[in-house]
C-alpha cells in the first residue's frame, strides 16, 4: 500500500476506461496491462522539450503530456484522478491533467508576486489543491489554496511560517497541512541563486488545513541551521518523514532524514557515517512504502538510493544509482528513477526529473 488510496493498476485501468486504452499504442497498452503499478514523473526529452509521463513499474512509458517548461513535483488525487505537475521554481505554471485523458487539462498560473516552489498536494476528497509558493518580495513561503471543483480557481492562501518553502503534503484525514520550509531565500530576479546560505532558517510546520492556523512549528538547532528541510512523506501511523539537504561544510556529517508526529519533537534517523557520505549530504527525494514499512531516499549528488526501516529509521538497503532522481513506493520496496533515463528496469530516451508519484 502506498500513500493515498488502495487502488492498483486494475483500478487505474478501470478509471482510465476503454477510450483511453484504445488510444494507446500496442506497446504502451502492453506496458500498462502487465504493470503492477503506474507512476507519473516529469521528464526532459532529447529535443529539450519538457513533459510528464505515465510509467509502468518496469519503467516503460505509457503516455506523455507536453508541458511548457520544466516540472518538478507532482500531485495526484486518487479520488478524482486529477494530476498536477508543478513548475520548477521559480516557475509560474501548474498543469492539471487527467492521466486517462478524460478531462481537459487546466493551466494554473501563480498570481502576481508569487511563483510556485514545485510541490503541492490534494485534500483527500480531491476538492482542494494546495501548492507551495513564494511571496518573493515579502520573502515568505505561502500555501496557495485552489478549488479543484471550480476550474482550480485560487480561493486563498496561508502563511507557511517560514522561508524557502518547498515540499508540502496533507494528512490522511485532511486536517493538517505539513510543510517543509527549506530556509533558503530565493528571488526570481536572481534566478535560482541561494541568497542566504550563511543565515538559513529551515523549519517544519503543521497548519490547520481549513483555517491555515499554525499548529506546530519546529526550527532546527543552531548546529543544523544549514540543514535545508525540503521533502516529506507520511507513514501509515501518521509519522511524518522529512529529508534534508546540507548547505554547510562539505566534510560535515549532518543528519539527512528524520521524522515527527503531531505533538512530538523531531527525531533524526541514525544513518551510518558511510551512508551519509554515500548520500553526498543531500537527499533529493523521499517516499514511504506503507505496505513494506520502508522509506526510500535518493541522492543525485552521491548517486545512491537508500532504504530505511520506517519504524526504526535504520538502513535496510543501499544501492548505487548514478544520477538518482525520483523515488516512490513500488509493489515491494521502492521504485527509483534517474536523470540519465533509467526507471527501475528500463532505460528510456528521456531525463527523468527529480520526483515520481504513484498513481495506481
Amino acid at each position: 500500500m502506498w500513500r493515498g488510496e488502495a487502488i492498483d493498476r486494475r483500478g487505474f485501468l478501470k478509471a482510465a476506461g476503454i477510450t483511453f486504452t484504445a488510444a494507446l499504442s500496442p506497446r504502451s497498452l502492453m506496458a500498462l496491462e502487465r504493470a503492477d503499478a503506474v507512476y507519473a514523473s516529469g521528464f526532459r526529452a532529447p529535443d529539450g522539450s519538457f513533459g510528464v509521463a505515465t510509467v509502468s513499474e518496469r519503467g516503460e512509458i505509457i503516455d506523455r503530456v507536453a508541458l511548457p517548461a520544466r516540472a518538478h513535483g507532482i500531485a495526484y488525487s486518487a479520488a478524482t484522478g486529477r494530476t498536477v505537475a508543478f513548475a520548477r521554481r521559480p516557475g509560474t505554471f501548474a498543469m492539471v491533467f487527467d492521466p486517462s485523458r478524460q478531462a481537459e487539462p487546466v493551466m494554473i498560473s501563480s498570481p502576481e508576486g508569487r511563483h510556485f516552489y514545485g510541490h503541492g498536494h490534494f485534500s483527500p476528497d480531491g476538492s482542494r489543491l494546495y501548492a507551495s509558493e513564494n511571496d518573493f518580495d515579502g520573502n515568505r513561503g505561502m500555501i496557495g489554496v485552489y478549488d479543484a471543483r471550480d476550474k482550480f480557481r485560487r480561493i486563498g492562501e496561508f502563511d507557511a511560517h517560514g522561508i524557502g518553502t518547498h515540499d508540502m503534503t496533507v494528512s490522511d484525514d485532511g486536517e493538517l497541512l505539513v510543510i517543509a520550509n527549506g530556509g533558503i531565500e530565493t528571488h526570481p530576479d536572481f534566478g535560482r541563486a541561494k541568497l542566504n546560505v550563511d543565515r538559513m532558517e529551515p523549519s517544519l510546520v503543521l497548519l490547520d488545513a481549513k483555517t491555515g492556523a499554525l499548529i506546530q512549528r519546529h526550527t532546527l538547532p543552531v548546529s543544523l541551521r544549514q540543514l535545508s528541510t525540503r521533502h516529506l512523506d507520511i507513514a501509515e501511523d501518521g509519522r511524518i518523514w522529512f529529508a534534508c539537504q546540507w548547505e554547510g561544510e562539505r566534510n560535515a556529517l549532518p543528519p539527512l532524514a528524520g521524522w515527527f508526529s503531531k505533538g512530538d519533537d523531531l527525531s533524526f534517523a541514525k544513518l551510518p557515517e558511510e551512508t551519509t557520505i554515500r548520500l553526498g549530504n543531500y537527499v533529493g527525494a523521499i517516499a514511504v512504502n506503507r505496505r513494506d514499512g520502508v522509506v526510500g531516499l535518493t541522492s543525485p549528488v552521491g548517486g545512491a538510493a537508500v532504504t530505511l526501516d520506517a519504524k526504526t529509521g535504520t538502513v535496510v538497503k543501499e544501492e548505487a544509482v548514478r544520477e538518482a532522481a525520483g523515488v516512490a513506493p513500488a509493489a515491494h520496496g521502492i521504485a527509483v528513477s534517474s536523470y540519465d533515463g533509467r526507471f527501475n528496469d528500463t532505460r528510456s530516451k528521456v531525463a527523468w526529473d527529480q520526483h515520481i508519484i504513484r498513481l495506481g
Partner: protein
Amino acid sequence: MRKIVFAGLVSLLPAAALAQEGDAAPSVDLPMAEVTKVMTAAVDGFIRPGYDAFHEASGKMTTAMKALCEAPSRTSYDAAKSAFRDAAVSWAHIEVVRVGPVIEQNRFERILFYPDRKSTGLKQVQSVLSKADETATDPATLGTKSVAMQGFGALEYVLAGTGSEELLKTKNGYRCRYGAAIAGNIANVAKELSDIWDAPDGIQKAWEQPGPDNPSFRTSGEAITALLGILVHGAEAVRDQRIETFYKGEDKAKFPKQALFWRSENTWPTIRGNLEGLSTLLEKSGMVALLQEKDRPIVAATQAQLKSMIELSAKVAPDLEKAVENAAERRKLDKLLADGKEVIAKLNDGYGGAIGLSSGFSFSDGD
C-alpha cells in the same frame, strides 16, 4: 577531519541487517590530479588575481573620489567617473564568481545591489542626500547601513544622477563625501575578499585540493561541477539579469532605465567585463584538458561565441533609450540574446555532458 553534526537525538551507530549493493555512483568522476590542476589554475590564475585587481581598482576609485572632494573641477570629476568605470569593469570580471565568501555576509549586495525593480536603492540614496546624514560619510558606519545605499549603484547616482553637477561646485560637499565613503566601503569589501582568497589555509586551499576532508569539495566531480557552475550561472546572469532586464525582444516591453548603470552609460562596458571574465576563467583554468579529445571543440566553440558577444557588445549604442528604439540596434540586442543562449547551452549541455552530467549541468542541480 570530518565533523559530525549533532542534533541532540542523533547518534551514528552502524545499522544492522544492511544490504549493500556497491558504492555510490557519482555522475562526474574525473582523475583527482587533473582536477586539482584545473582548480589550482582557476584560483591562482583567475579568482585571486580578479579580487586583487578589484581591490586595487576600488582603491584608485576611492582616491579619485577624495581628490574630487578636495578640489572640484571638470578634470577631477572626469577622473572620478573614469575611476568608477574602471572599478565597475574590474568588478564585472570577477563578479561572475557567485560562490564562496562573496555571497556570505551580504558582501555581494554591499558591492552591487542589483536588480532593484522597486528602486529601493534610488529612494534610499535620494533620502540620505536630502538629509545629509553625516554617518553615511564614513565607510565604516556606511557599511553597517542598508546594502542598497553603499555600493556601485549608489555611487553611480552620486556621480551621474540628478544633482551631480553639485560635485563641481562645492569643496568637500556632502554629496561628494558620501560618494567617497561609498568608494571606501567598496574598497573595504574588496580587501576582505582579496585577503580571504589569499590566505593559504582557507578557501584557496579548499578549492585547490578537493578531498574527503575538504570543507568545500569532497570529490573531483564536485569541484569541477562547481567550477562549471560559475560559468553557467555567470552566462545566465549576463543574459537574464543584465540584458533581459531591459530588453527581451522586439515585441516585448522595453525598460532601458532598468539596465545596470544606464545613467553613466556603463551598461556595455560592464557586460563586456562579465563576458571577458567568463572567457578568461575558461581559458586560465585549462578546463579543456579534462575533456576527451573528441569533446574538446566545445570549449573553442564557446570561446568563439564569447568573443563574438564581446565584440558586438562594444558596438551597441551606449544610450539604451535610443538603442531599444532603433531597429538596427535591436538586431544587435537580439543577436546578443541568441548568442547568450548558445553559450549557456554549450557550457550546460556541451561541457556538462562531456564530463558526465548526462542531462547537462542545470538539470542535475536537484532541488
